């Protein structure tokens, strides 16, 4: 994915221009990127920090001017400072926060004994029985929220963080009724509204009397 960091380099007064644009990561004192437009209209680009390794490119002619970071990694997350020196007006400083999201990787659904649900079919259960199923999500930064859905509605929102990689949600249903035969329960894990959440479903089987 490409990270986009904006910086307004348009001068506040007419007849002025930006002479130098520098990008700093967090509290570092050496800019990892400098756009030097002091002598020539074109301006020269200097990228000096090896951790960005040529992945960073500044586009001063866009509106607003934009720093693009290619192949973003989770370690690129953080606060970035843009400093613009103008020829005739005071220096402008701005900050942008970049959050690199990693979607969750996979889901696992287990029963109350911790066994994997075979063929994604739960049961068969009798009428009046209680079911207890847990969905565990692995991966994702930030950690996702795990939800249980039934009939296109969220029926359980209680997400519990197990570790720095795993989150679970346990669904308990009491007093099964006939109508629950063949119902589909879907577990979903999401940590952003940009990519699709991952999901897994199980079907409930019941004994006929």
């Amino acid at each position, binding site marked *: 994915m490409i990270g986009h960091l904006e910086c307004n380099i348009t001068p506040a007064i007419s007849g002025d221009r930006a002479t130098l644009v520098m990008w700093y990561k967090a509290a570092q*004192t*050496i*800019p990892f990127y400098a756009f*030097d437009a002091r002598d020539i209209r074109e301006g020269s680009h200097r990228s*000096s920090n090896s951790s960005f390794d040529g992945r960073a490119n500044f586009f001063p002619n866009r509106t607003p001017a934009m720093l693009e970071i290619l192949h973003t990694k989770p370690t690129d997350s953080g606060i970035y400072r843009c400093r613009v020196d103008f020829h005739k007006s005071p220096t402008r400083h701005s900050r942008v926060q970049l959050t690199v999201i990693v979607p969750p990787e996979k889901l696992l659904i287990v029963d109350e004994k911790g066994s994997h649900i075979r063929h994604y079919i739960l049961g068969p259960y009798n009428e009046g029985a209680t079911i207890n199923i847990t969905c565990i999500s692995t991966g994702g930064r930030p950690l996702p929220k795990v939800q249980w859905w039934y009939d296109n509605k969220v029926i359980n929102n209680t997400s519990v963080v197990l570790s720095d990689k795993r989150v679970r949600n346990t669904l308990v249903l009491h007093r099964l009724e006939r109508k629950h035969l063949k119902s589909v329960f879907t577990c979903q894990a999401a940590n952003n509204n940009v990519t699709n959440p991952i999901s897994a479903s199980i079907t409930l089987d019941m004994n006929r009397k």
Partner: protein
Amino acid sequence: SYIVLGLDSVHIKVPVAVPLGTSVTLVCECDLSDEDLYSVKWYKGKREFFRYTSKEIPSIKIFPKAGISVNVNLSNASHLVLDGIEPQSSGRYSCEITEAAPSFHTQIASRTMHVVDLPEVDPRIDDMKSYYGADEFLEVRCTAGASLPAAKLTWLINDRPLLLPLQEPSRLESLTLPADDGPSSSSGSSNSSSSKRSSSSTNSSSKQKASVKSSSQVPAAVSQTLDQERMEEGHEQSGNMVVGGAPTASALTEGLMATDTARTKPGSRTTNASASAASEKFGNRYEVAVSQLKLLLEHGHFQMGKLKVSSYAFGVGEFMSHQAVRAVHAI
């Protein structure tokens, strides 16, 4: 990888306190040669107001900023001279040094500078009686002259500092009031005088008038008289002003209380333009410090049958200011 050139640290020197109306030099030095330097910039708060660019002509650029008047002739890459310091000159000053290409290594250092204006008048002690006995309460109030920022008040009993913290039922309270009338006012007086107006001719107050400084009964008239007296004494005292390094006495045991708007007296005098500067975070407003002392007197407080109560007002940066003295005979 590349080599970092010589910008290891920035050496900044900004005075903590600077008197109103003077000039001040701010220093920002580093170990870079002019050749290796791209720019030195000074900011007040977030706004740049001075820039030295080594390879440009002219090398100095000034951007206007309220409260700042740069002396361009005397300023250079390492020294910044500001003239005509005003209350609005108070603030946080930052120096940003940027090395030349290719590294553009940048270092920033900041310091806060407070503009001070000492009180023009002595502090005043009110509500003191002529006679006290042991086991009685000494209840007095000290009001400092208006200053920038509020002065710190210290109490002395028989020339010895008050031992703090005080034990109940003794108590020390301090607060700061805005001085809406500029440097020559002491607006804390109105409350005490209005409450005293009903009992205007108590023995103690008339006796006190005779001695040193009196508690005012009618604010306007008496205050003016006192101001005249104090202005003269103030001038005499100015010879005693000492710029010292002693830590300020901690007379204020309790935190400053929020100002009670009902207590500020309606302004009836012309205000100095500088005193009524727009309020900024750094307290460009003149303030009046008030300290209220309630002390349970014991035999040990009296020396040779006398009780002397005095107070000192200190300004920021340990500038010593004026003093007020009340001497009283007591049983």
